[in-house]
């Protein structure tokens, strides 16, 4: 598996999905359920999108308060909104 597709940045962002980690989490939460192999990747996709939205919202909050650094309060406020959105 490719670690990163076309990341031309200073720090290497792993594009690899932590499949074992996701499976372990699911098992811990719902031991009576099973997670299929492909859905594992979709869970990872879901996480990516969640984090993406969270980051966007946090960035908006930080820029809204004219702060150059993302602070805890920004993240908290963003999380409230995004978690509600991704409740499903």
């Amino acid at each position, binding site marked *: 598996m490719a670690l*990163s597709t076309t990341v031309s940045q200073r720090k290497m962002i792993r594009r690899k999905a932590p499949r074992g980690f996701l499976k372990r989490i699911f098992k811990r939460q719902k031991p009576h359920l099973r997670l299929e192999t492909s859905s594992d990747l979709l869970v990872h996709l879901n996480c990516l999108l969640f984090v993406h939205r969270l980051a*966007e919202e946090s960035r908006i909050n930080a820029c809204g308060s004219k702060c150059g650094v993302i602070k805890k309060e920004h*993240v908290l406020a963003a999380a409230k909104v995004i*978690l509600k959105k991704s409740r499903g």
Partner: protein
Amino acid sequence: MAYNFSPDSEPTTRTLLRQVLDTAVPRTPRRARSTRSGAQRDLLETPSSRRQRSQTKMTARRRSHTATSVDRLARVQASGHLEEQTPRTLLKNIILTAPESSIVMPEAVVKLVPSPQVVQPSRRKSSRGSLELQLPELEPPTTLAPGLLAPGRRKQRLRLSEFQQGMDWGHLSQEPRENADASSLTSSLNLTFAMPLQPQSVKRPGLARRPPTRRVVDVGTFLQDLRDTSLTVAPPGESHRTPVATVPMDTVLEDTQPFSQPLAGHSPSVHHSLPCPSPSGAKEVEGAASRRTRSSGHGLQNSYSGPGKPAQLLARKMEEVEAIAMGLPNTSSVSGEDGIEPLQNGVGEEAEESMEESMSVREVEKAAEEQGSARAEEPEGHTEVAAAAGSLGAIEAKEPEGSSEDEDTSGRLASPELPPSTPEFLRTRRLQFPEPAPPPSTAVLPSELPKHLSARIPPRPRIPGSRPRQDPYKAGLNHYAKLFSFYAKMPMEKKAEEMVEKCLDKYFQHLCNDLEVFAAHAGRKTVRPEDLELLLRRQGLVTDQVSLHVLVERHLPLEYRQLLIPCAFSGNSVFPSQ
């Protein structure tokens, strides 16, 4: 061939050149060429006139006359071997090679010098003439230097000759000989080059290639001495440490960070920041603290009063241990730690290594008389403390100090005489686990390093039993936290990242619940991709306009895409099969 022979009876540039070439011993190809050209000329011309240098004075007059003739002659002669047969070029070559000859055979050089000068173009003639005139008179070729330097070619020749001379100057043995020869008419040209260089002969000329001698050995021996002294001092220090672990925490407050309010009451005098924001295991903390106390104790000592009493040292160490133990949990939530942490992390290794040195250095200093210098530095430390104490702004002060400290610590190894107290003080401030391995065994340091770093970066659970769940869990969350910082494209605080991890935790719980509901709704016990698609649709990520495959293509790498999106292959097969 038709040559415009100037009257042979008079010393012409040509004849002079011929003389020079004949007398010069061919050493370089250029020389050979020049000699060949000279020989050619001899063959071509009547070697009737063999002018002596005494006649050089007349050349000044002749130059103007013979310049053109010589040039023409040179051009005529250029048919042969050399690409450049003009007297000018020949003389140039001679001049270039002149210094070499001058060093070894001053007479030849002397002869060479005047002739090349004579034939030079009009621009240089004036200088040359002066040169020639000066040759027999040994006048200081002061005029030569500017005249030589003015023309570009001259510069090149000068440089070359200087280079040659510089190379030769490396052989000091030859220099006295050269100087002795220079006393005589060691060619005005050479003199011109030599004059500025002769005074420098004793010193290293500008073109010297010899590397400067460095006292590397001194540092090594010094370090060894430090280690030896530290080794001798280490055992007693350790023995004292353990029994004093029960010092009340109040005395520890000196080491606490300014923003750790409960403990900050005592901090002002000595502001030793304990930048351990992340809560560490108690064991590790104390272990690190115990290790830290040595250095911090030393630093404290130096910062306070300088008198290196072991008892005081140890007392400080104990205090620091407690302070660190207390400070760690309290400072976890202090703002600004984030800034310190990376600096600390970066400096950690350096600090640790340098701490060892500093520790040993401190020991040595106490034994020695350097307390005076330590006291001199104490005021610095005190000022720093005063400035930083009791203010959140101290954090920023620490960071530049930390950066300067990095240089200090790194420089310490090189220069053992660095002010010990100040960098120690700074180091203790940083105290980010200055695992100064009191038994300055370097072997201990590496073992401590990974422990410290690993303990510091991911927040470790207090209960060892729950560690297996925490660590991989945290590792996975860290993965997404990093993605968060990547997506945000903005600097983030460490607390914000912790917040992100908490949000992710909550999110995973929601996710699992939803998937369970969906699977149960479909009457299944396994979660399938359809459930996930439904989840994405409900979240609003997948719409009629944006399909799941689009999202997959956008965000997942190729390998995953191939697994998720059915694609038709040859042979009427689809992968993944539906």
